[in-house]
């Protein structure tokens, strides 16, 4: 039962990464791919109908983590207190930017929110990567089951690290590029004209940066946490995730060159899914590794809720997620096709 819930939580977080990931990527590149007001409105209209729904996956995943592994939720959220508060402010500013930009005609007003949107999106993409980096590196959990981590210390991933060290910053930079590439492919798929052309250019640039950074992150992880790779090799099924990631990155380059835009975007999605899946498959059963004493790590077994609650939740979760998939299919179907900024159905005038 704990294994199933480990998979459910990781799966929901992976879906969140893929969905909100392209929103973050689109935001990161916003000022580069769109120059005139009409182009910028095209960018907003492309993510407008879906960004809110994408972000909801973070809240839903958080709730599911809370019910299934309350001790992980309590430790992680209080331990990363300062970092999470900054994430909250960025999420609020980014949402306000998307909703406010089109409400005044004043060009300075629009410029201000465009930049807020771009900066907040890029920082969130970076932070999402550092969050994963922190989970992989581990945190100073002690016998109380709690920890508190400063934003940075000496930038080394030692037993008493900060949120930012060279390793998590590297993962953050990698994530920033990967999500930028992912977002660029979304724009290539959903738009036409100059935004699409520049999106194509930036997709190529971002993915060319992803390759060396991916290699660097993989080597650094193998040096810092060799056990993840031994676990992966011991669990042949987990190689499916590695193949998904490799196939994804190959697909991105293959389909981008051939102009098969949707296939390229789906490939980058499977790259992200594969990476998150492979990382967490190598981590299992550890949720939060203690840098002080491995015995204090929070795992799927020592932090799970009792099985009655988990069994009940599995029933309603299955129903709920089936409904959610139906709504999302309906949502993406009803907004299918290229964005037409002159048409109706969006709020970005």
């Amino acid at each position, binding site marked *: 039962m704990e294994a199933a819930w480990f998979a459910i939580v990781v799966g929901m977080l992976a879906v969140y990464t893929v969905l909100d990931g392209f929103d973050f990527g689109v935001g990161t590149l916003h000022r580069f791919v769109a120059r005139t007001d009409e182009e910028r409105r095209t960018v907003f209209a492309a993510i407008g109908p879906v960004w809110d729904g994408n972000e909801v996956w973070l809240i839903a995943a958080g709730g599911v983590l809370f*019910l299934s592994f309350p001790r992980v939720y309590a430790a992680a959220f209080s331990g990363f*207190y300062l970092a999470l508060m900054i994430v909250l402010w960025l999420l*609020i500013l980014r949402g306000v930017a998307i909703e406010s930009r089109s409400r005044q005609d004043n060009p300075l007003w629009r410029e201000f929110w465009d930049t807020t949107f771009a900066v907040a999106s890029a920082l969130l993409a970076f932070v999402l990567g550092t969050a994963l980096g922190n989970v992989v590196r581990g945190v100073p959990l002690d016998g109380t089951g709690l920890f508190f981590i400063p934003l940075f210390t000496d930038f080394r991933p030692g037993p008493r690290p900060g949120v930012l060290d060279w390793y998590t910053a590297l993962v953050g930079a990698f994530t920033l590029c990967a999500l930028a590439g992912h977002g660029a492919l979304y724009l290539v798929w959903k738009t036409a004209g100059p935004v699409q052309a520049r999106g194509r250019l930036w997709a190529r640039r971002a993915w060319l940066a992803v390759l060396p950074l991916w290699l660097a992150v993989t080597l650094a992880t193998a040096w810092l946490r060799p056990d993840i790779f031994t676990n992966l090799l011991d669990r042949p099924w987990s190689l499916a995730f590695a193949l998904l990631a490799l196939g994804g990155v190959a697909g991105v380059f293959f389909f981008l060159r051939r102009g098969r835009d949707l296939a390229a975007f789906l490939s980058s999605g499977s790259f992200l899914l594969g990476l998150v899946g492979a990382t967490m498959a190598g981590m299992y059963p550890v949720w939060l590794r203690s840098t002080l004493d491995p015995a204090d790590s929070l795992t799927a077994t020592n932090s799970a809720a009792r099985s009655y609650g988990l069994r009940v939740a599995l029933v309603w979760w299955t129903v709920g997620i089936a409904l959610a998939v139906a709504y999302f299919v309906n949502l993406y179907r009803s907004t299918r096709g290229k964005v037409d900024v002159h048409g109706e159905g969006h709020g970005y*005038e």
Partner: protein
Amino acid sequence: MSADLLWHRIQFAFTVTYHYLFPQLTMGLALLIVVLKVRALRTGDERYNEVARFWARIFGLNFAMGVVTGIPLEFQFGTNWSRFSNVAGEIIGQTLALEGVFAFILESAFLGLFLFGEKRLGPRGHLAVAVALCVGSWLSGYFIIATNAFMQHPVGYTLGKDGVLHLADFWAFVLNPWALWQYAHNMTASVITASFVMSALGAYWSLMGEHTSHAMICLRVGVIAGLLSSVIVAFPTGDGAGKMLARHQPAALAAAEGLFDSGSYAELAIIGQPNVKERRLDNPIVVPGVLSFLAYGTFGSTVKGLNDIPRSEWPDNVELLYYSYHIMVGLGTIFILVMAASAFLLWRGRLQQSRRMLWVLMLAFPFPYIATTAGWWTAELGRQPWLIYKLFRTADGGSPQVGAGNVVFTTLGFVGLYLALGMLFVLQVLKEISRGPEGKGHDPVPAGGGPPAAAVP
């Protein structure tokens, strides 16, 4: 109380109080928009649709504020209350996750269609989307109330040897009787807020002589819904919630009523100041017997006073609880009077000509926000000193490793950010009001403000 704990409480109280200014309008307004759209479909009167579209634009703005200020709250269970999350996460995590999976995903997937898809969906399809959104927001409200009800009146759990609470009976937990009363009371209050806001704008337009036939629709729907909800919030829902308090939280009832001495024929204090040091109510005006009747249904019933409750189980801020409760009840009484008078004039066909009544309606809209806030403060202060009533103390629930300095810093950040957000919100609402309900053509101008699509290069 340690400084750390005090700041954790202040931070949560501030963010949750500010947040709930928005959903209380969202939930009530969603219902009133459905009413307007049904009327439009029944009567074929296009003005109902124009009014519905106007309120949909306000709804969109208000909804966005609710979303962005709501995300921090779910985080704060973990960030600020990690020991509470450890103890109760297995249980309250259920309802929080239920809200995410069933309500938020539903709302987020239909909001865009509701705001911008009217033409594409047609009148019936658009009504269906409005209903879906209303159901989503009311469902969301239920899951949060059920979470709070567990803290007020825990049911459906077992206590583990390590002090951790485990879920034992899902349905008992979700259908907590406390939650049912609290939900009915809270949602009725939400309809009151929406009714007062809607009739205030109808009154404003009527006084200004603008959009008068649309203003009349706002007045009619607002006043009728306002009268119904103002009555229901007192009886049966407020009465039911009060009897739950009498049965399960006698200390909270005694403090809210300012009752120090136990006894039969307990008096209801209309006004007075609790003097906690001397353990009495200063300068009171009381009605004998009424409190016994309200709490237990007969005038002779004995109501327990604070003097018969150990000091360690008193709510830790008796005065604030007393004032919150009295403000809620007092304003609730005034709402019934205002709406009854307005409804009488509406029935006589004189409401839109009665400038004095219109002035009252126009200026009344902030008070439901105050009453609702006071009501929630009553519930939350009354629960003290317990985080989970009689099971787990607030003093034990914080995040021990997150010191006061961090919390002060981030609280100041939230105060500044929310101040800016509030100004932005008011600015946009005023802009929508000055644009008025007469849509440019048939199509709703998207919430974007600014000129209609065709005029933009």
